[in-house]
């Protein structure tokens, strides 16, 4: 498939596609912001603060998508032993974690005017908080080994285990929430969102996604370079060692 599964094929593809992705994300986010901040109306209940939604919702979406990309490429790495899939998973984790954090931060900012507090144990926010810690665990495990290959394999198993657990955690948190607290003030009316709000939201989601993919490509390319450097160093050490042994014998 386009030779995408090899590092060199990926680099060629990424070089060709990246500029377009950057342009697309700039246009989409620019357009989305224009509609979100200037065109769309303020909410009759929430006032101007509803505009936080245009950052909050795409961040939440990408936080979850980042984890899914991570888990799926981890599965690919474990099943087909594809070295590139490992790098995609590794590259996706910090980006996804950043979006998850952005989602939590904007949620907190939104919560202050809405709920009168910076943090409420809202089911959605709580799930995102746990997701953030799943990301942290993944990133920490990946960096905890001297051999990057081992870190990648261990983290891949963890990503899959986490992926299986995410629905269970989500369900249990929803269940816990309904048990302990009355329904929160915030009502996301879902599909009934007015088109004047839906348009900028969709534009922002599309723009954020393009941005995510573009950043992912940059990160994967730099990971490929890093792996090359490591391999070069190792082969150098090896040849130096071999030369040293030969010298010792000759001497």
């Amino acid at each position, binding site marked *: 498939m386009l030779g995408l599964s090899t590092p060199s094929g990926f680099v060629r593809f990424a070089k060709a596609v990246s500029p377009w992705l950057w342009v697309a994300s700039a246009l989409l986010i620019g357009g989305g912001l224009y509609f979100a901040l200037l065109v769309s109306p303020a909410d009759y209940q929430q006032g101007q603060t509803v505009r936080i939604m245009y950052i909050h919702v795409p961040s939440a979406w990408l936080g979850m998508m980042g984890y899914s990309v991570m888990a799926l490429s981890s599965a690919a790495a474990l099943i087909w032993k594809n070295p590139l899939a490992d790098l995609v998973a590794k590259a996706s984790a910090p980006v996804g974690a950043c979006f998850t954090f952005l989602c939590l931060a904007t949620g907190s900012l939104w919560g202050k005017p809405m709920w009168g507090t910076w943090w409420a144990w809202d089911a959605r926010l709580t799930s995102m908080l*746990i997701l953030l*810690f799943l990301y942290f665990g993944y990133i*920490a*495990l990946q960096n*905890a080994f001297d051999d990057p290959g081992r870190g990648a394999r261990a983290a891949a*198993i963890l990503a899959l285990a986490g992926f299986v657990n995410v629905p269970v*955690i989500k369900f249990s*948190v929803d269940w816990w929430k309904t048990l302990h607290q009355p329904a929160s003030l915030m009502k996301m009316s879902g599909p009934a969102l007015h088109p004047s709000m839906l348009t900028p939201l969709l534009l922002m989601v599309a723009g954020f996604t393009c941005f995510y993919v573009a950043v992912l490509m940059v990160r994967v390319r730099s990971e490929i370079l890093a792996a090359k450097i490591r391999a070069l160093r190792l082969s150098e050490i090896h040849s130096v060692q071999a030369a040293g042994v030969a010298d010792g014998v000759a001497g």
Partner: protein
Amino acid sequence: MNRLFEIIRRDLRLALRQGSDSVMVVTFFVLTVILFPFGIGPEANILERVSPGVLWVTALLASMLSLDRLFQADYEDGSLELLALTPTALEVLVIGKVAAHWLTTGLPLMVAAPVLAVLLHMNADGFLALLATMLIGTPILSLIGAMGAALVLGARRGGVLLSLLVLPLYIPVLIFGVGAIDAAIQGLETGAQLLLMGGILLAALPLAPLAAAAAVRQARE
């Protein structure tokens, strides 16, 4: 099957001879629970209100405390390589080790929990639910914990890392465990929570050893 019992027997014998793990886990459990009255005050009604949560959170932490020895000792002295070369599925051996871990930590925690519940003035209606959730819940902790313990083999700062990996995955057990006890105290049905926990146990029983065995395999490379 013989090999499964062989490894359970050996791990139990090791735990018995080394002696410290079970005692340490229970001591930690008791000591941490005793800290709570000092932290939040000795009023019976407050302690009663928080007792299910305190017991379960502390049980989670206590069970986690013993996890890093689950595979680490075998990893360091080369036993894990030989275990992986045993002519049987590595998953079976992992199940054996998990069973031994539960017998030496989960079971003592379960025995200690009602005593501590008395100290925290827990309502007598909650005792049965406490025991039932501990019975279903602590094996899940051992299973998920075994996966985490296998993943951090050979890692730097494995112990701290282990808690970061495992604690988020423990959250559903905590929620349903405390939920069942709360429901029992309020005179409600506990069947739903116990069934949900049972479901998690049934799912973890094959999946966690699978993941742990995969982690052990990649650790010995």
